[in-house]
């Protein structure tokens, strides 16, 4: 979406027309959902936060600066909301889920590369590895940001990411 179109949508929103928000939603819902899903691996949570994001956008419509790069603004807001949700509500639960899961990645060390879907490939990763990959690829976060979010050393984060990429390569992913 061009900046001028985004500005028009914001103007519409400011005048109380929800059509402006709907145009932004249709354009960016996939992108925002992906960014949020990268941080919150639960589909339900990602949907909740994505919905909240657009409601929040409506709430702050009078304060949106239309002269700035809007995509970066949207991603920043979405990412902050997801991180906030992760830290406040679900960090403990996610940790528990991670601890409970079987480390499936170890078993495929010597597996033959097979023609599998991405979903299956991702299943071969440990939860913490998948989380780092999601944050890096989907949420476009830096290793430093991931390390701060997960509250673990940056060395551990990069190590997890490299491990994950190594595993995914066996399935033909580069």
């Amino acid at each position, binding site marked *: 979406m061009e900046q001028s179109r985004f500005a028009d949508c914001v103007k519409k929103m400011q005048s109380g027309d929800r059509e402006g928000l709907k145009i932004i939603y249709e354009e960016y819902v996939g992108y925002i959902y992906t960014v949020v899903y990268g941080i919150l691996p639960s589909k339900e949570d990602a949907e909740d936060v994505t919905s909240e994001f657009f409601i929040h956008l409506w709430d702050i419509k009078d304060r949106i600066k239309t002269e700035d790069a809007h995509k970066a603004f949207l991603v920043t807001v979405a990412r902050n909301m997801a991180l906030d949700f992760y830290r406040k509500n679900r960090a403990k639960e996610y940790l528990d889920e991670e601890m409970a899961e079987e480390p499936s990645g170890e078993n495929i060390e010597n597996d033959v590369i097979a023609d599998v879907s*991405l979903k299956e490939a991702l299943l071969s990763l440990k939860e913490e590895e998948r989380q780092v990959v999601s944050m890096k690829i989907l949420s476009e976060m830096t290793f430093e940001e991931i390390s701060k979010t997960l509250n673990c050393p940056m060395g551990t984060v990069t190590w997890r990411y490299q491990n994950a*990429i190594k595993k995914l390569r066996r399935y033909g992913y580069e």
Partner: protein
Amino acid sequence: MSKNLEEEYLREIQNDVPDLWGRINAGIDKLEESKEKEEPSRVTPINAEVKPEADNAKKRGKKRGVIALVSVLSAAAILFIVFVPVALLGIAVIFGNNAKFGNGSAEMSMAETSDSAMYYEDAASDGMMYEEEMEEAEEPYYEYGNNMEDMDMAGAGEVQESLDSDNKIAALIQGDQAGDIPRESEENYSAAIPEGQAKEEISYVKGDLIAEDVLLRVDIVRSIDGMNVMEVTVLKDFKPEAFFATDVHAGECMIVKSDDQKLWDSFTNKILTSDSGIVLKVDMYVDESGLNEYPLVYLKSE
């Protein structure tokens, strides 16, 4: 055949995006409703505090009364201030007191004249005494400086103290320029280190006040191999008045004002000899205000 992880991952997630517009719309409705509810609740307490009209009328009546009283009082005060002096003046004119007024002013001017005459006589006698002292002064300036301190102490609290002090400094400078006071020529001293002179300790010290209480001290040390080493030290909370020539010792000498910054002339001088036999000349300088003295250290050239 390699697959692009990033592209495929993004595509897969974005394909799974559910339709959230209904939820968003509902959320916005809730948000708008809660905002609407908040607005009247803000107004209600203000309405509840509205008092009966009768009370308000009473208050307004009281206010009006106070305003009227204040305006009457202020008008009376203005009338009193303006008319009373005019009335008194008129009475004085009527009863013919003009002569008395004239005599009074004449007496006053007489008194003034005699006072000022005494003042100028005092000042003249001070000047004569001072000149006599100057003629007697055959010793170097730093000794004279001690006399000055005594004089200042004795005359503490006098009205003309600051004027006397300025006169003394001016007279000292005049005397210095006329050659009345014996002192060594500054030509014999050099700010530079004599060539070939080897010295481990400070050989030339230059400092400058870079702020009100910050002294930049520059030490140039001539090392044995003939290379100059410059060391810069910034001394904070420095009080120039605490440093006098007599307090400056060889090896820790410092210049607070450099030679080209002197505003008056050399005020006093002192020769110091360092432990290693280096001869230093210390001058005292007085700044523009005439109140602050600064030591200036030279290295005596051979």
